[in-house]
């Protein structure tokens, strides 16, 4: 069994992990290793062949592969070690990591600091409890994307997509452009859950019907999907039986939610936020375990990879400072609690001493809002659940924040899309 000491172990070599490793190396940490379960670095980006990446970070309009290759190259130039096809099996709160691959066999790493960057997984048909048969042809959108745009195979020719989140919308366009027919995108909410730009570019451009306030109630087909039954839902999301109709198809794609992948965090007894599914972190992206940091989608699901990169950089910098014994212990810990119309807020704990950027997810769309954090109030024109609300506090602004043990973060305004 290979045993090693490392300064920083980064679990996950996607956008967040790469940014963290690069930043830590730039801050002078030599002994860094990235542990990646796939056969190449990049995380989800290599399979996101569409544009829209890097508009903020690079002021360019890149595809996923173009965006991430810049970080992969930088990591290579900085000679940051990475282990591919490597699965982390376990981590402990004293930062011992057990991983495995075919070349090294079982690996035990004792790290001074760990950066969690494992990303997220997709909600499944089983978890939703969709009734019906269990034939071939039911896939989550991310898996379909990998199969189509990396492995080079189509799961079917006639598709229904459940969920109008961004991944579902992106895949609707991909299916059409690869010669399949998309019969409908089915969404339970009265509005699309993805960005409006994707509704335009992926559905409207291709005349794909968007069935709002609908859901899939049943799947048919013995060996292969043959059809799905859809129905309109009432205000309680319960299907209205009289509206049921069948759509013939051979593939059902599910785009019904992302869940931060925190199996490892749980094993290490890291405190998780039930609202996000990810670890509770502070201004430094540090979790409840000293020296273990979290960044990217494993903390909560971001809208833009540019934001993930920034989060990764902050985590990498913090991890480096921690290893160099330069990370200040926070004198104050203000716990931010989600209030009216706030689903989640990250970071969940702030010091009130440092500039900080808060990321909020709202429950309902509102306009002409005031985001209230303790005694501070920030106006915003519109807030929508699909779009994360970003609030940056400079050093001066944060000084004005009342320093209580707990502050509520809430949103007041007019309801409506």
């Amino acid at each position: 069994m290979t045993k090693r000491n490392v300064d920083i172990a980064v679990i996950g070599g996607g956008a967040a992990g790469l940014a963290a490793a690069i930043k830590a190396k730039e801050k002078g940490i030599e002994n860094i290793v990235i542990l990646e379960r796939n056969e190449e670095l990049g995380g989800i980006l290599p399979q996101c062949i569409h544009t829209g990446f890097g508009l903020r970070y690079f002021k360019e309009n890149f595809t996923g592969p173009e965006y991430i290759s810049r970080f992969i190259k930088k990591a290579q130039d900085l000679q940051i070690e990475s282990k591919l096809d490597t699965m982390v099996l376990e981590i402990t709160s004293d930062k011992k990591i057990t991983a495995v691959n075919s070349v090294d066999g079982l690996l035990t790493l004792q790290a001074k600091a760990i950066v969690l960057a494992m990303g997220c997984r997709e909600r499944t048909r089983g978890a939703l409890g969709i009734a019906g048969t269990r034939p071939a042809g039911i896939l989550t959108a991310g898996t379909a994307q990998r199969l189509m745009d990396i492995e080079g195979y189509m799961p079917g020719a006639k598709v229904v997509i459940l969920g109008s989140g961004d991944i579902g919308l992106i895949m609707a366009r991909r299916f059409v452009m690869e010669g399949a027919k998309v019969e409908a995108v089915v969404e339970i909410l009265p509005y699309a859950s993805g960005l409006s730009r994707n509704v335009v570019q992926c559905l409207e451009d291709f005349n794909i019907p968007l069935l709002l306030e609908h859901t899939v109630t049943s799947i048919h087909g013995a060996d292969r999907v043959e059809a799905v039954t859809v129905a309109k839902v009432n205000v309680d999301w319960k299907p209205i039986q009289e509206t049921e109709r069948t759509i013939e198809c051979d593939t059902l794609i599910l785009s019904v939610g992302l869940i931060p992948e925190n199996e490892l965090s749980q094993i290490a007894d890291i405190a998780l936020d039930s609202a996000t599914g990810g670890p509770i972190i502070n201004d430094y992206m540090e979790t409840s375990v000293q020296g273990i940091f979290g960044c990217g989608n494993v903390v909560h699901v971001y809208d833009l990879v540019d934001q993930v990169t920034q989060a990764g950089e902050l985590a990498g910098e913090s991890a480096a400072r921690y290893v160099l014994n330069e990370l200040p212990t926070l004198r104050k810990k203000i716990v931010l609690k989600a209030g009216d119309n706030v689903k989640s807020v990250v970071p969940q704990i702030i010091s009130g001493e440092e500039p900080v950027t808060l990321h909020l997810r709202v429950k309902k769309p509102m306009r002409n809002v005031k985001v209230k954090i303790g005694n501070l109030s920030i106006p915003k024109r519109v807030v929508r659940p699909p779009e994360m609300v970003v609030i940056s506090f400079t050093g001066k602004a944060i000084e004005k924040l009342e320093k209580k043990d707990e502050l509520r973060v809430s949103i007041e305004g007019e309801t409506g899309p």
Partner: protein
Amino acid sequence: MSDKEIAQKLKAQISQDPELSKLRLKISCDDDIVLLEGEAEKWEQVVALGHLAAGMSGVRGVVNKVWPKFLLRPKKRRKFKGKASWDGMEVDVVVVGAGIVGAAIARELSRFNVKVAVVEKESDVAWGQSKANPGWVHAFAGVDVDPGLLKAKLCVRGNAMYDKLAQELDFPFKRIGLLAIVTEEELLPLLDFVEALAKQHGVPVEIIRDREEIFRREPRVTEKALAALFFPTYGSTSPYLVTIALMENAVANGVKLLLDTEVIDVMVECSKIKGVVTDRGKIFTKFLVNAAGLYADDIAEMAGAREFTIHPRKGEMLIFDSKYSSLYSHNLAPATLKTDPYTKGGGIAIAVDGNSIWGPNAEEVSYKEDIGTTSEAMEIIWEKFSIFVPNIPKEAMITAFAGLRAATYTEDFHIAPSQKVKELINVAGIQSPGTAAAPAISEMVLEILRKEGLRLEENPDFNPTRKAPPSFHSLPNKQREKLIAEDPEYGHVVCRCEHVTEGEVVEAIRRGATTLDGIKFRTRAGMGRCQGGFCTPHIIKILAKKLKIPVECVTKRGSDSELLPYKIKTLLLRGDSID
């Protein structure tokens, strides 16, 4: 009663029923087998007629050909095979069906110098009922079941055989025990009576009246528990792993397993079995063991010897995340007065793989392939069982699945040589407690075969031991290292949720898996929280590589279930979809 008396009495009973009396029926009885023909209005009436007939004293079996007027008779799924032919094969025994019963019988036969072929229409073993049940190894058939019934006797006998079997065949088995929780006050004064009924089956049972004792044994069970009945000999296993283990051992001892092979006719000459006609040629045999589950009545019909009809009864089940199962240490079930005569009511099973399985419910269906789940049943099962395990939230549900019980109208096992064709041994109607009974069933079938003239000369090379393939996840680190050193493929984890390695997937293929589901049932890859989201692309590639087939031909469970039917650009090149 004579055949005529049985028929008359049945007609009289039917005429007293307001609904059934209106139906146009033809009722006859021959050699204690009732034959029902005619038209019904709905399926419930068909089942009701079958049960009424089975309830007549002296009836051996019910052949029920009554069908609802407007219900389409579904076509049986015929799969295209296009594979090698077995035509002309000659054996001593053909076993139809590679479920747990067929596999157990094949393994018993392999102790002797007998040429055996197991014929299975699916692409893998255990794909009928044997994979679609929660894995209870029942201690007994139930308090409301007559201990004299065949299923009751075989259940108790089979249950006792499991420890030795699990050791020989290296499959997971745990004597987990069942706590039947009493929450209804009206049941409290009846507990001694219930205990006596259980004892009639010959099973150990303990009444726990001290609530503190219940919580001591099961700290997180519902506060509503007033008392409990404890059955220590209840077991939990994985019925498909048992089937796989039995079949591997049978094959290692000389049995031929013919998958993707469907019996389409039975050759009978002068009331003697000559052989079977399959979709891959004729196989000649002296004896035919009919362990065809849901289709056992069709097989018997092909031999001109139908003595029963299978009426499928669907059972749906929910699977809950293993991280909650560790909160409980016994199987749990409601002890209730509200019993259904045709189901034990289900419960919460702690599966050996760690997940917990709730259910099953029971619903009569007309179609033998109707294994779709329904949202109604999911709700019913959740409502029924969640009160017993307050710590398990609804979000912990990973998935739902369904199976069909192959029930005869007598609701008992039908294990006997057919009267018309003696070498046809029917092993039919094996519903719950089939898993527990399987080892005892196979013993009984061997005895029947011996009596009917099968020469059983001991096979000196018979090896009763079979070793399961290594499971990376369950090995301690030292053994994991050893495994990887011998074969680096065991270092490549392809299933994130269950930590299944490429080495295990390759070994499963070596042992006979040819489909994604085959890999899933043997290795657990795809059974975890992400339900195959990460591992599916990996496994498809490994299957294609090892089976030397194009990726487009890799299936979920055999022909017509291809997972990735189109190579990229094929649809565009076809030119018919883009407008």
